[in-house]
């Protein structure tokens, strides 16, 4: 039977006829976080499948790099994952440094890590805030965004922009920390730490909230590895893998921090609540890292001397950074000219999208919202 162009499966059961309902969630839907589309086949409230349809936000960022050169591509990396642009900056900077053999000054590395970790806090705040909002509570979302705003102010002071930072350069960072910056950041962290506890009191352990998330959308450890989940989504399934710890880059090997993993404290290991909680815990770890960096910071230059027209030797390089949405891979091929021959970006959200169909079977429509939010999918990162 065909209805409005869709093939509809009709099940006859006794005299009653039931039809599977095809729902179009997105691309314009309040909780798909950008322009994502899910084709949902539902039996009443219960979903049979939810097939993600991506590509609405494809801006051919990788292709652009072949036209604008190594230095000129840096602002575009902000747009790969606009929620935590610092790590993208760092990824591009690192891959170019590797292919062109550039040493970053030590102070520059510290500046990078401070900026990245602040960015990570901001990104996780948005992630948990948006998740809570999708569950239906509006207040915690705005409390999270209020704190994110303060971080945005800090980053604005550091690099002059609130969202598209373009702070890092190939060979270091563009600008050193401004005067009095460590004090400002410490003051922020001091007032931010108790607010995480307050957030827990307000919503994290709220019975309604826990019930919505516990044992919903369970991703087992094996599944997570098979589907190539990365970052907080992988760690929530109980697999302790963090690029910062396992393949330390920059100065992460000198810093002390924990890698929080999911514990299944209210339901099953790897459910939505674990993914939420891992992000909450990671914010604390990021605070710790920023404090350590501010204390350890050596004096010196922040930017290495790099040719204006960078012409790396031909070859290729691949690096990985731990973005807010997990292991972010940056691959660049150089043919010896001043433009990259090919660039490839591998992102965490894209991997997370692949598992949505499998996990969402048999969930309710309301659970799909929680599931997408718990994967912290950012549409531009999926499509690039």
């Amino acid at each position: 039977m065909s209805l409005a162009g869709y093939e509809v499966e009709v099940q006859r059961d006794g005299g009653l006829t039931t039809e599977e309902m095809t729902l179009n969630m997105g691309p314009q839907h309040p909780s798909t976080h950008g322009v994502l589309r899910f084709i949902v086949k539902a039996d009443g409230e219960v979903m049979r499948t939810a097939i993600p349809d991506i590509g609405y936000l494809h801006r051919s960022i990788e292709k652009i790099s072949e036209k604008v050169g190594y230095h000129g591509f840096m602002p575009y990396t902000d747009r790969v994952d606009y929620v935590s642009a610092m790590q993208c900056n760092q990824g591009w900077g690192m891959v170019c440094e590797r292919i062109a053999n550039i040493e970053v000054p030590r102070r520059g590395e510290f500046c990078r890590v401070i900026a990245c970790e602040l960015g990570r806090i901001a990104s996780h705040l948005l992630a948990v805030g948006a998740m809570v909002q999708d569950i239906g509570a509006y207040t915690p979302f705005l409390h999270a965004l209020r704190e994110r705003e303060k971080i945005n102010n800090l980053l604005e002071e550091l690099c002059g922009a609130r969202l598209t930072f373009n702070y890092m350069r190939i060979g270091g960072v563009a600008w050193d920390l401004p005067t009095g910056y460590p004090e400002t950041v410490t003051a922020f962290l001091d007032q931010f730490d108790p607010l995480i506890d307050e957030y827990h009191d307000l919503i994290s352990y709220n019975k309604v909230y826990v019930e919505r998330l516990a044992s919903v959308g369970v991703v087992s450890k094996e599944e997570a590895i098979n589907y190539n989940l990365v970052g907080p989504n992988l760690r929530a399934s109980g697999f302790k893998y963090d690029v910062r710890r396992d393949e330390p880059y920059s100065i992460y090997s000198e810093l002390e921090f924990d890698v929080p993993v999911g514990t299944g404290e209210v339901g099953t290991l790897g459910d939505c609540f674990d993914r939420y909680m891992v992000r909450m815990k990671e914010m604390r770890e990021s605070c710790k890292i920023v404090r350590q960096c501010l204390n350890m910071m050596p004096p010196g230059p922040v930017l290495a001397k790099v040719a204006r027209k960078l012409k790396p030797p031909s070859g290729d390089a691949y690096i990985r950074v731990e973005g807010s949405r997990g292991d972010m891979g940056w691959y660049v091929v150089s043919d010896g000219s001043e433009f990259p021959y090919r660039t490839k970006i591998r992102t965490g959200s894209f991997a997370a999208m692949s598992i949505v169909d499998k996990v969402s079977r048999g969930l309710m429509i309301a659970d799909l919202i929680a599931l997408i939010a718990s994967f912290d999918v950012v549409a531009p990162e999926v499509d690039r």
Partner: protein
Amino acid sequence: MQPFIDRLIANGAFAGMPVEVVYALMMILFGVLVVFGFFLPIAGVTSWLERRVWARIQSRIGPNRVGPQGFLQWLADGIKLLLKEDIVPDAADRPLFLFAPYFVVWGIVATFVVIPFSSSLIIADMNVGILYLTAVTALVVVGVLMAGWASNNKWSLIGGIRSAAQIISYEIPASLALLPIVLLSGTLSTQGIIAAQGWAPWHWFAFHNPFTFIAAFMFYVAALAEGNRTPFDIPEAESELVAGFCTEYSGFRYLLFFMAEWGNLYVIGAVATLLFFGGWQVPAWTSNTVLLNISQFGVFFLKSYFWVFISMWVRATLPRVRVDQLMILCWKYLVPIGFMNLIGTAIWMVVWPQGNRVVQYGLVILTVAVLVQFSRRVRFHLRRARPELYYSPAI
């Protein structure tokens, strides 16, 4: 109000007119009075206040430009919506689509008939007042279901169906919560129920015995669920169903849905007040009937608005429950507890026909203790977060 009209007729104010016509005219007059004099402004002001309360909880300011402190925002919003085009989708079931919002508003406005604002300010003191209340509020579900179906939109349909399931289910715990009160007062008339209580908290039915104490909260929860309020706003869950049953509505009809929602909020507060919290009861401080009635109205309004305020506050705190959890809450928790309350109250009435004073005082003290603990926790949160304090409600 009927005695008042009867007196007018007896005094010959409408000489020469058939009595039926007088009653019909009076009905229209009071209808207009209630809708335009009370329901509209109260829904509007509630919408403004809700936004302000929300904003304050969320570290925002909220509407503060139209009128003093943005007080006239509701008028501006209403006029804006009135001036918008009333769009009817091509594929919609036109008559049903157009008529659905009226059903919703009708169901809410009709409840005002039995709400006693003071000892003599009531449109009709029916002897089946409570029954009437539960009956007309169920009319809302017809409107919502019509809206969901007629929109010919899958999201609307899910919203409508969810709403039907929700409202019909929650009729039961709501009614079960009313029944202990009916038992205690021995009447279904709203004025009778208030008359059976006193002005002091320990005279209120909420503090009569532990079962009614629980029933009061149960009623409030069930009423919120019937009124589609967070945490039970699943029919219009904006993050799941876009806007649920009112997705396709615009302009005036959309306004009607929201007017009904906010008007219903007041009705919830008023019913909770009249059943459990002493209604308009005040100490007999004056023999002047007019002054006494004014003070009664004030007390009733404040009490009922307090519950409206609580519902705003709850809405700003809690996330939304899932549709199956909503049903679990209803059938596995509220309904059994409701039956327990009913039986418990009946037994209580057998054991202590006049009520137990010690228990009544004890329950009041318990409530005060909870409030004290509450303020201690608030102080704790303030001390931990060390925020910048700002006490004035005005900005």
